[in-house]
C-alpha cells in the first residue's frame, strides 16, 4: 500500500500557501492595478521574478535567509525558539514567496478589468472606499479570485526545487509528493514513483477541469 503522507503533506502545504497568499495579495494587487506611482513597475517586476528564476536560486537565498547563521533566521529562532530551515513552516514561507506571482497576477488583472466608472458611481452614491471595495469590487472579482486560488494551489502541489533546498527530505515534515517522486526515482523504485506521479497528474487535471468549467460560465449568451 502506497504511503499517502507525502500527498497529504503536499495538499496541506498547498492549502496553507494559497490561504496565506490570498490574504496578503489582495491589497497589494489592488494598489498595483490602480496606483499611479512609478515604483509600481519595479515592485511588480520584483514580485513577478519567481516566475522566471530557477527554483534553486530562490530556494538557495531563502535557505540563507532562514538559516540561524544569518540575522533573520537568528532573530526568529531567538524569539520563538524555533528553527525554520528543514521544517514545515520553513517550506510554507518558501512556497509563499515562490508562488506569489500565481496569486497576484490574476488578482491584478481582475482589478484592472473593473471599469473605473463603477467605482466612481459608488462614491457619488455616498459610499466610502472601503464599502465600495467590499460590496462592489470584491464581488466582481469572483473569477480572478478563483483563478488565483486554483493556480496557486496547483503550482504549489508541483513545488519541488524550493522545497528540497529549504526543507530537505524529512518524512512527515518536508517530504512532499514531488520530493518523494525524486527520492523513489533516485532509488530506482519506479512503481512507487509512478503511483505518486499519477496521483499528482490526477489532482492537477481535476483542478484544471474545475477551473475550465467555472470559466465556461462566461460564454452564456447575454440578452440585451
Amino acid at each position, binding site marked *: 500500500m502506497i504511503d499517502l503522507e507525502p500527498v497529504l503533506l503536499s495538499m496541506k502545504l498547498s492549502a496553507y500557501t494559497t490561504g496565506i497568499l490570498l490574504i496578503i495579495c489582495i491589497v497589494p494587487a489592488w494598489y498595483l492595478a490602480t496606483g499611479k506611482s512609478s515604483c509600481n513597475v519595479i515592485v511588480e517586476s520584483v514580485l513577478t521574478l519567481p516566475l522566471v528564476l530557477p527554483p534553486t536560486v530562490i530556494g538557495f537565498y531563502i535557505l540563507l535567509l532562514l538559516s540561524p547563521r544569518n540575522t533573520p533566521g537568528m532573530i526568529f529562532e531567538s524569539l520563538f525558539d524555533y528553527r525554520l530551515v528543514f521544517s514545515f513552516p520553513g517550506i510554507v514561507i518558501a512556497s509563499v514567496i515562490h508562488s506569489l506571482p500565481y496569486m497576484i497576477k490574476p488578482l491584478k488583472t481582475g482589478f484592472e478589468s473593473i*471599469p473605473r*466608472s*463603477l467605482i*466612481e*458611481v*459608488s*462614491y*457619488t*452614491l*455616498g*459610499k*466610502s472606499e472601503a464599502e465600495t471595495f467590499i*460590496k*462592489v469590487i470584491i*464581488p*466582481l472579482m469572483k473569477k480572478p479570485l478563483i483563478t488565483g486560488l486554483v493556480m496557486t494551489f496547483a503550482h504549489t502541489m508541483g513545488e519541488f526545487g524550493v522545497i528540497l533546498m529549504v526543507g530537505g527530505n524529512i518524512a512527515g515534515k518536508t517530504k512532499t509528493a514531488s520530493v518523494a517522486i525524486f527520492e523513489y526515482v533516485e532509488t530506482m523504485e519506479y512503481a512507487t514513483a509512478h503511483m505518486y506521479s499519477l496521483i499528482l497528474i490526477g489532482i492537477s487535471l481535476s483542478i484544471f477541469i474545475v477551473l475550465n468549467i467555472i470559466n465556461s460560465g462566461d460564454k452564456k449568451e*447575454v*440578452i*440585451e
Partner: protein
Amino acid sequence: MIHINISKKIHTHQGIIDFNVDKSFNKGEFITISGKSGTGKTTLLRMIAGLTEPDSGTINVHDEIWFDSATRKNRTIQKRKCGFVFQETTLFPHMTVLQNILYAHNDKKLAYELLELLEITALAERLPVKLSGGQKQRVAIARALAIKPEILLLDEPFSSLDMNLKSIVQDELKRVHERFGTLMMLVTHDYTDIFKLSTRTLYLTPGVIERDGSAYEVYLNQLTTHKFSFTGKILDIQKNDLVYNALIGSTHGIIETIVTEDDIKGLTIGDMVLVGSKVFNPVLHKLGVNLLEPDAE
C-alpha cells in the same frame, strides 16, 4: 443658489485648453450642456461631482463651500450628494435592479416609488445583464435619485438609445424633474433633449461657455411664437411641381410637410430644423449652431 467659478487646464484631442466657468444655477432648473467634443462638458460635470479637482476657484452650493482652492477646502465626492448618470452602463452587475437602488439608499418604499416613477417596477428582480440599454439608464437615473441629490448630473445618458426609446426616457426624466424639482444638468448632443427638456441651455466652445439662455435664444436667431413646434432632422426633400415635400424625422415619428422654395433655401438633408406652425402652414428654421458631433472627451 449654486455658484461655480472654476478654472482647469484640460487635456483634449486638440491639445491643452484653459477651461473657465463663472456661472450661477438655481434649484429647479433643467440645464442642458452642449458643444463639440473637447470643450470641457464632461469635465464640468465631474468637477461639480468632485470626481475631478479644479485647478483653482470655488464651488458654492446653497451657501456651503464644496470647493475652494484658496482655503484648500474640497468636500469629498461622498458628501456632495450629486447623483451622476454616466454615458456607459454603471449598474452593479452582481446586484438586481432593486438591490442597485437599495445600495444607494436602503429604503424599500422610496426604491419602489422610484421604480414606479420610471416605469420599471416589473424589472425589480432582474440583473442588469437582462436589461435593454434604455432600461439600464432608467435604473441608473432611479439609483441616482435615491440619494435625494442636490444636483443630478447626466453625462449623455441617452446617446446609445434609439429615437423612440429616447423619447420615452426624456418624458420620464421630465416627469422626475417636475416631481422633485432637483437641479439637473444634462450633457447632450441632441436637439430634442435641448428643446424638450431644458429650462436653460449652455453652449460650450473650447474652455468657455459661449452662449447661455433658453434653447430658443441659444439655437435660434430670433425668438419665435409658434402654435406648436418640435425639432427634427431633414430626411429627404423632393420637388413636387411648384412646391417641395420635406420628410422630417423626430421623436414624434416621420412627418411629411409641404414647403416652398424659399423655405428650403440653405437646408440640406441631415440638417436639424425646428418645425413650427403659426396658423396653418408649418415653417422650418435651420437651427443656429451646427450639428453637434458625438463627444470624445
